[in-house]
């Protein structure tokens, strides 16, 4: 009898568990009155109504794992873009109001995780617009997204095959990646430091140098700059840069140019060079805030350095950057991180392309996006580019902000237009 009595609470527990599993953990974040997200059918014939519908935009990036040190900022930016778009009234398509709901998935900093997240968004959630895809992860989900005509706004490209090229007609690059940043930095060197003629070039070994280095060599040549020796490549997960810094310091060049990498790379290398007494100018095509680099290398090393990041409060800044930047710093803390702004632009540009198309059909949106010129971004006015570089005119080439470290403090450098063929 006692055993049977024990079964009753167990059965109740099981039943409650099943109910709990069946229920959503949080209420759907739609506005009232809510309707099912119409992400598949184009509402071109929907009559104007006051009812606000929800448009889901997916966003895939690393919330956990090694890359999340940087990529988690992209979610912050995408979230702020969504909030700002909704605060401005959302999207209006053929008279129908839409509020954007950002559906974030964690790629766990792995290619497998990125594909799993894509499968979930595309096949389980039936989402047709996805942003994100840091590093080289866009290529892994190419087949799924292109086959299903899912429009993607990617936050980065390492230029490996299949990330963005002729085989990805539904993919747009909505950030300045390795090549765009390299163009901007080399133009900055040419404009601001005419005495710099030779560069010692360094890059982490993330598997992309074979694709980017030939392009960058052409860029150097086109600007009358020459490199001293081959590209110095070091392990991507290197923690102490001292041995490589010794190698760089031995190169007799006017300045140092880091063609790729991010804040831990640049911070460690800068620290290593300054410890060796090498005070040459260090130009980093590195998406990182000067404040973050300063936190890594320390004040004593923080001079004669430039990286890619906007500085808030500068008169030359576009108003949208000041607004988004202030919101990002207020909600997530500072310093302002460029990777967050890249996440912002993915959602921002895609939303404006949808509104320009006046359709939720991804082919119509793609066609409309291809005709958008100029394009409004957080960095100011951008243009579509990349036909020669990537084989497809799907790069939103936006201005790039150079930030400096000078005598131990960050300061604004310049805005550079990106002229990418």
């Amino acid at each position, binding site marked *: 009898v006692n055993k049977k009595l024990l079964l009753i609470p167990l059965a109740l527990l099981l039943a409650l568990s099943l109910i709990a599993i069946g229920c959503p953990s949080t209420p759907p974040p739609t506005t009232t009155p809510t309707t099912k997200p119409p992400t598949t059918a184009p509402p071109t014939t929907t009559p104007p109504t006051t009812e606000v519908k929800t448009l889901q935009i997916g966003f895939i990036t690393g919330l*956990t*794992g*090694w890359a*999340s*040190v*940087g990529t*988690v*900022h992209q979610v912050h930016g995408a979230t702020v873009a969504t909030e700002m778009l909704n605060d401005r009234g959302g999207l209006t398509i053929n008279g129908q109001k839409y509020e954007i709901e950002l559906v974030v998935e964690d790629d766990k900093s792995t290619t497998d995780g990125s594909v799993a997240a894509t499968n979930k968004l595309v096949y389980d959630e039936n989402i047709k617009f996805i942003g994100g895809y840091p590093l080289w992860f866009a290529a892994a989900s190419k087949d799924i997204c292109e086959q299903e005509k899912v429009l993607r706004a990617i936050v980065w490209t390492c230029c490996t095959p299949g990330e963005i090229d002729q085989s990805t007609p539904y993919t747009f690059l909505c950030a300045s990646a390795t090549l765009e940043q390299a163009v901007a930095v080399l133009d900055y060197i040419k404009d601001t430091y005419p005495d710099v003629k030779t560069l010692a070039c360094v890059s982490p*070994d993330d598997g992309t*140098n074979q694709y980017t280095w030939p392009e960058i060599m052409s860029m150097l040549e086109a600007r009358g700059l020459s490199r001293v020796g*081959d590209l*110095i*490549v*070091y*392990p*991507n*997960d290197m*923690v*102490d840069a*001292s*041995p*490589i810094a*010794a*190698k760089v*310091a*031995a190169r007799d060049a006017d300045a140092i140019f880091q063609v790729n990498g991010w*804040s*831990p790379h640049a*911070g*460690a290398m800068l620290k290593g060079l*300054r*410890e*060796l*007494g090498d005070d040459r100018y260090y130009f980093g095509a590195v998406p990182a805030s000067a404040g*973050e680099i300063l*936190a*890594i*290398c*320390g004040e*004593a090393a923080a001079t004669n350095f430039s990286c890619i990041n906007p500085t808030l409060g500068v008169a030359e800044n576009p108003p949208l950057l000041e607004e988004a930047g202030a919101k990002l710093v207020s909600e997530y*803390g500072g310093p302002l*991180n460029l990777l967050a702004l890249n996440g912002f632009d993915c959602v921002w540009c895609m939303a404006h392309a949808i509104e320009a198309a006046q359709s939720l059909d991804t082919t119509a949106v793609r066609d409309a996006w291809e005709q958008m010129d100029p394009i409004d971004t957080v960095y100011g006015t951008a243009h579509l580019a990349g036909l020669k570089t990537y084989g497809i005119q799907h790069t939103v080439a936006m201005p790039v902000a150079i930030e400096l470290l000078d005598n131990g403090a960050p300061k604004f450098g310049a805005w550079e237009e990106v002229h990418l063929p």
Partner: protein
Amino acid sequence: VELTATTVINVLVLSSMYILVALGFAFLFSIMGILNFAHGAIYMVGGYICYQFGVEYSLNLWVSMLLSVLIVASLGLFLEKFCFRPFFGNLNRTIVVCIGIIVVLETTVNILVGTSTRSLPAFVPGILKAGAISVSAERLVTFIIGGALLWVTIWFIRNTKPGQQMQAVSQNVEGAALQGISIHRVSALACVMACGLAAVAGCLMGAFLSLTPFMGDYMLVKALVLVILGGIGSMGGIIFAGLIIGGLDATLPLFISGAASEAIALGIIVTILLFRPQGFFGREVI
């Protein structure tokens, strides 16, 4: 000449850095046979606690390091009692528990502090110069503290009563217990010391390198390789292994480009182990 001198300094500093990080891991493995895969995560937590006190609360950095060591050592006591002791002698379960500890610690720091890279200020700022050769004071401090801690640890094991009890436990657990040695007390002390050493390493590396929630992953691999190459059970062996690994990591990148330098370094170590599977100093030498 300048590059050669700089490389010699790099070999010594990198070696001491690896030895410092591996010391707690090697200590626990040698004495108690606990393969603490969570050592890297504990090392990371030590650095972050020091950052919290030293940067957020503006305490003196050395005091912050002391507080970090005390807190992480207490964590070691907790881990020994609730995570390692129940699975003592069972490698598979210990590994699973360690993976759990890593996930909990990394995720906690990730959520509470954020993933942005940060760094502790230098414990001893400044750069020392001798002609064309220069070395930062904090690298010198890392070298000195690494060497001193290694010496103190070996001295403790050889010359103190608790240290000799640890030796007895490492040689024969049942025999030591029959002699009246409390295995649990020795195990707890070893865990506290290992975690304290990890915290010291985390604090110094947090200033020397940088702090991220995943900073321990790379160092754990180095510590594991170093302990195996030095010889399981040998505290002295890690000096020799540290010098070899530091030497490879400081010189190979000068001649070999990119990630290949790391692969070749590991290849050399594997080749050494093929001829000397027990490592350089085997198990008997403590």
